[in-house]
Every structure is written in structure tokens, then in C-alpha cells.
């Protein structure tokens, strides 16, 4: 006899309980007890179990076990999966094209075009020859140890995902800055996205999309990395000097003019700080996403772990660090340039 029998008999639910007599798998505890050949004895007060689902199921077999909760979730998910896919698939399909396209272009273009092109971009956004030299040496070093392809794959994925993060995140941030209600609803979602361990939201994504599609890791990266750009766009626009906003109103600017000519330019330092974080987080995620077939340096790290190839994993890790430093320096430097051009 189980501890909580009394509860159900007191509530007059014995009939309902006995209906489920035969159903339900054996709980782990029962199984152990049976194999040990123990018979149930009265439990002392020290051993009273918490009235958990399993404990209650023991007393009344109609009561669901906790395994049925997870099972229910699973079934629920599976049942809406098809209808969800109907509109999620076409919606996210372009992401696959972007990623595959970027990966293809990055690798199909010869290195003696890609590397100078990257350096030109660095020079354009930072105007710093020192940084250009640093980036050049780093990339050549990676190429020299035959990690060029992996590094470029990682970069291509980051470019696409970070670009999409900005494309989606900035408008969301702007909308949030304009409506306190929207901000109230969005912030908990952002908090959740940021605190959930990345492994956790890979799970539903694997259910929804097939692992062979590149959009799977694309979505995982974007969900993870979009948060800072949204947050900082919102914050940046809210922090724009109220006196300047008032002046804009007093001279009869339309909302559009105010947004494009005052708010966004003045929020740009904050937005760029968000972009910097977004890029760094994409890099972190692209490594984890190698678990779901994202190509790049992460794959090598994974190989290091799986096959215990210490050297492979460590060198790939070093490559990731180098990429991180490059991306961080370049975005920080362009941020500093924006800051310098509009200090008060």
C-alpha cells in the first residue's frame, strides 16, 4: 500500500483510481522493489515521499506519471509539426539558400581574391592599416596551416546570420522603443532566448526541420545572436537626448525624418555595440551548431572531442579564437570611429 492511498479514499476517488489498475508502465521504484523481492512495509515519517506525480500514481493508477508529461509534450509537438511546417518551411527556405549560397561563393572564389577583399572591407570600416595588417597575417597563418576553408565557412555563416540579425533586429528594436507595451512583452522573450542554453533550443528545431538543411543551424544562430542587437537598438533610441528630440519636434519633423535623421544616427553607437555582441555570439553559436551539421571550424573541434584527436581540436580552437579577435577588433574599431564623429 502506498503512502497517499488515504488521500484518494478521503476524496472518494477510489472508483476512478481502480479504472486505471492495469494501465501504466511500472514505475522505477516498483521495479527495483520487485527485483529485490521486498514487500512494501509502512513507511516511517522520514521516508514519506514528496507527493510527486509518480508517488501519487502509485496510490492511484489513474493518476498520470511524470513520464506522460514529457510524452504528451512530444506528441503535442509532433501533431502540430506538420501544420507548423507548412508555413515555417517556405518562410525559412531563403535562409537555406543564403547560407548555401554564401558558403559556395566563399569557397568557390579563389583565395587570392577573397583575402584582399576581406582586407579592403576591414580598411573601409576601420581606416586602420595596423588592423588590416593584423587581419592579413592572422588569415594567412590560418591558411598556412590548412584551416583556410574551415575558417571561411565559419566566416560565411557568421556574415549571413549577423546580417540577418541586424536586418530583423534593428526594426524590432525600433518598434520596441516606440511602444512601452511592446517592450513589456518582448523583454521576457529576449531574456528567455538569452538564458536558455543553446543546446535546449536545438531540440525543438531538430524536430521541426531536418538536420540536413542549413536553415536549421541558421535559425539556431539567429535566435541566439539577435538578442543584443534588439536590446541595444531599443536602448539606444530611448537614450537619445530628449532636448534634441524636442528640437526635432519643434521644427516640425515628421516621425520618419525624426527616425532616420535624428534617432537612428544618434543611437548608432549603441546599435553598433549591439552588432558587435551579435557577431561574437554568432561565432559562439556556430561552433555549437556543428552538432547539427554546421560546417566550419566547429566541425574540427567536434572531431577532436569525438575521436579524441587532441591536436585537431586544439588547433581548431585556436582558429576560433583568432576569428573572434579579428571580428571583435574590427567591429570595435568601427564603433570607435562612429563615437568619435558624434561626441557631444
Amino acid at each position: 500500500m502506498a503512502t497517499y492511498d488515504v488521500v484518494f479514499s478521503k476524496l472518494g476517488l477510489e472508483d476512478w483510481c481502480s479504472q486505471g489498475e492495469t494501465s501504466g508502465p511500472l514505475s522505477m521504484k516498483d521495479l527495483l522493489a520487485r527485483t529485490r523481492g521486498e514487500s512494501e512495509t509502512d513507511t516511517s515519517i522520514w521516508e514519506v515521499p514528496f507527493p510527486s506525480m509518480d508517488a501519487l500514481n502509485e496510490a492511484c493508477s489513474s493518476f498520470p506519471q511524470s513520464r506522460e508529461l514529457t510524452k504528451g509534450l512530444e506528441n503535442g509537438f509532433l501533431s502540430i509539426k506538420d501544420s507548423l511546417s507548412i508555413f515555417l518551411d517556405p518562410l525559412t527556405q531563403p535562409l537555406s539558400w543564403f547560407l548555401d549560397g554564401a558558403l559556395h561563393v566563399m569557397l568557390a572564389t579563389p583565395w587570392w581574391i577573397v583575402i584582399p577583399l576581406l582586407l579592403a572591407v576591414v580598411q573601409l570600416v576601420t581606416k586602420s592599416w595596423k588592423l588590416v595588417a593584423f587581419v592579413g597575417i592572422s588569415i594567412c597563418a590560418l591558411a598556412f596551416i590548412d584551416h583556410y576553408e574551415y575558417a571561411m565557412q565559419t566566416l560565411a555563416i557568421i556574415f549571413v546570420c549577423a546580417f540577418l540579425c541586424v536586418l530583423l533586429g534593428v526594426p524590432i528594436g525600433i518598434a520596441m522603443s516606440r511602444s512601452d507595451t511592446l517592450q513589456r512583452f518582448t523583454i521576457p522573450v529576449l531574456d528567455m532566448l538569452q538564458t536558455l542554453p543553446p543546446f535546449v533550443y536545438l531540440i525543438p528545431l531538430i524536430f521541426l526541420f531536418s538536420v540536413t538543411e542549413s536553415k536549421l543551424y541558421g535559425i539556431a544562430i539567429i535566435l541566439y545572436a539577435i538578442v543584443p542587437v534588439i536590446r541595444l537598438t531599443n536602448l539606444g533610441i530611448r537614450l537619445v537626448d530628449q532636448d534634441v528630440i524636442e528640437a526635432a519636434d519643434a521644427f516640425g519633423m515628421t516621425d520618419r525624418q525624426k527616425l532616420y535623421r535624428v534617432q537612428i544616427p544618434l543611437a548608432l553607437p549603441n546599435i553598433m555595440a549591439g552588432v558587435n555582441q551579435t557577431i561574437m555570439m554568432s561565432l559562439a553559436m556556430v561552433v555549437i551548431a556543428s552538432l547539427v551539421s554546421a560546417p566550419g571550424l566547429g566541425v574540427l573541434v567536434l572531431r577532436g572531442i569525438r575521436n579524441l584527436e587532441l591536436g585537431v581540436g586544439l588547433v581548431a580552437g585556436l582558429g576560433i579564437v583568432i576569428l573572434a579577435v579579428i571580428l571583435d577588433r574590427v567591429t570595435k574599431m568601427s564603433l570607435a570611429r562612429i563615437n568619435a564623429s558624434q561626441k557631444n
Partner: protein
Amino acid sequence: MSDDIKISIKKLYKIFGDDPQTALEAVQGGMGKAELLEKHNHVLGLQDINIDMRAGEITVIMGLSGSGKSTLIRHLNRLIEPTSGSILIDGEDVLAYDEERLRRLRREWMSMVFQKFALLPHRTVLENAALPLWVRGFKEEEFEGEATKWLDRVGLEGQGSQYPHQLSGGMQQRVGIARALTSNSPVMLMDEAFSALDPLIRTDMQDLLLDLQKELHKTIVFITHDLDEALKLADHLVILKDGFVVQQGEPQEILLNPNDPYIVDFISDINRARVLRVRSVMEKTTSVPEHSQGEVAIDDNLESVIAKSGGATDAIYQVMRDGQQAGIISMKDLMKALVPTEAATREVR
């Protein structure tokens, strides 16, 4: 100077809070600012404001911090909506304007100068000065000439390509004034425009404003908490306290006949000899006095007359306007005017 009334504020009330209408009834029933805050938790911003501002004049609104000056001036271009009352500009009810019409008012009829300058830090001085024009959709080559003209006029020749942070406070405010002038609006609102500047620069800017005004004859609403500044600039002076008008009128008139202890206090420290003018103290007469010591101009201040007299207390001067005698001024009357209105002062203390 014409006598046209450009801006007319009638029975204006502003109450800050969640339910201003209920609070408004209480205020109209005679409740004061402190009581309203205590009982209804609403802030009384303005109460029963009635002001007529003439075209081409400088109307100065003066009051201590928190008296509602900024609130009042922001009603004119509806940066703040009133709780009740009406605002007429050129006879048109501004409160009836829709968004589009209101925008036109702000773009073409009224410009504003701010205490903290409020320039766009990411735009050059030229682009800042041209703001009213590019807001209206003009292209760079169209607004450049106009903006440069006004920058030159306020003394910023050749600074157009600088950024605001490269300029001193005084120069930044010159940009602010140039920006207001570029809009070519008949009305200019200035909220403590010179309060953030140090005294010397401030005097410069006041002179600049008076200079510009001689030429442009705008209707200017100027806010200050500084009495000297108010007296220097005002054609019409409005004194505000806790959201209501204590006294308004010609500044000299207010100095000589303050109607409230609050104002008496306010004016007790100023240099009356420098502020009061012959015209306010003279006796109006066309008969030539027997022992006239000479002639003084009607707009001279008393200080200059005292200097002229060399300390002689029995001198009498002819007061001249446009070469004709408008009255006479005796040193005896002049001395009396220098003593802060005795009667009123004694009542208070």
C-alpha cells in the same frame, strides 16, 4: 512697431496628472498648487493665463524655477497640450489644427531656441543651421546660401563645416539662433536661451538679439529667470509665479508700480538708475523750464543723466524726442524714482 496682436493666450490651464479634468474643476473652484498636489496628486502647471503678445515685440516671461515658464512657451507650438483654454495666432485657433497644419505652423510660423542648444551632434554647423530648410525638403545646394547668410549674420563666418562639439557654448547658441532665423518664421520662441552662458557672452548675445530685432522685427517670446536680462530685452514683461501671472505690462511701469510683494522682492536688488529711463520718470510738458541745464534724450537711462549732472541735485533738464521737447526731468524726481517703491516695500516688511 505695429499694434497687431500676434499671439493671444486666453484662460489657459495646464494640469499634469492622470485625470486633469477633475483637477481642473478643483482649481477653478479656487484650489492652489500645494493643495492640489496634496489632495489630488496633480501638478498645477499653469492657471488662468491671459496674455496678448504684439507683433514685432519681445515679450519676456519671467519667473523663478518651477513657475511654469517652459510649460507656457511649449503650449504655443503645442509641444504640450493644454488642459483648457485657447491659443490664437494671427486670430487662428492653434488648438483646432490637425497634425498636418500643426506641422506647417512649426515649420514656417514658429522657430525655437533652446537652453541646452539641442543641436544635432552628428551634423555640421551648416547643416544644423539649415535644419528648418531640409526638414521642409530643400536640397543641400538650395539651403546652403541661406544658412550661410544667417551663420555670417550671427558672427560665425567660416565655421560652417565644423561640428557642434568643436564650438564653445556661446558659439553653439549662435548656431541655435541661426537655425531659428533660417526658418524665416515670424515668431521666435526662446526658452532660457542665454541662461547656460557665462555673463560676458550672455551680454554679447543679448546685444546680438536686440540688433537682429531692430532689423527683423520678429515676434519674440523670451523666457528668463534673470531680471536684468528681462528688463534689457522686454517690450512687454510677464511675471509668472506658481503657474499664474502676477503682473504684466511695460517693464518700466512694473518697476515703478509693482502690485505684489513677490515682485517688490524680485526688483529690490536691481540697479534702478541703469534700468529706469527718462521717459518713465519725466514730467510731460512742452513748456521750457527757466533754468534748464541742458537736454537729455527720452530713452536715456537715469544713470547717464546723473553722470551729466555731475552730482548737482537741483538741476533740471529738457527731455527731447526727435529734436522736440517731450517733457522735463528734475534731479529731485529722478532721485525719488531711485528709491525702491517705498510704500509697497513697507507694506510687506
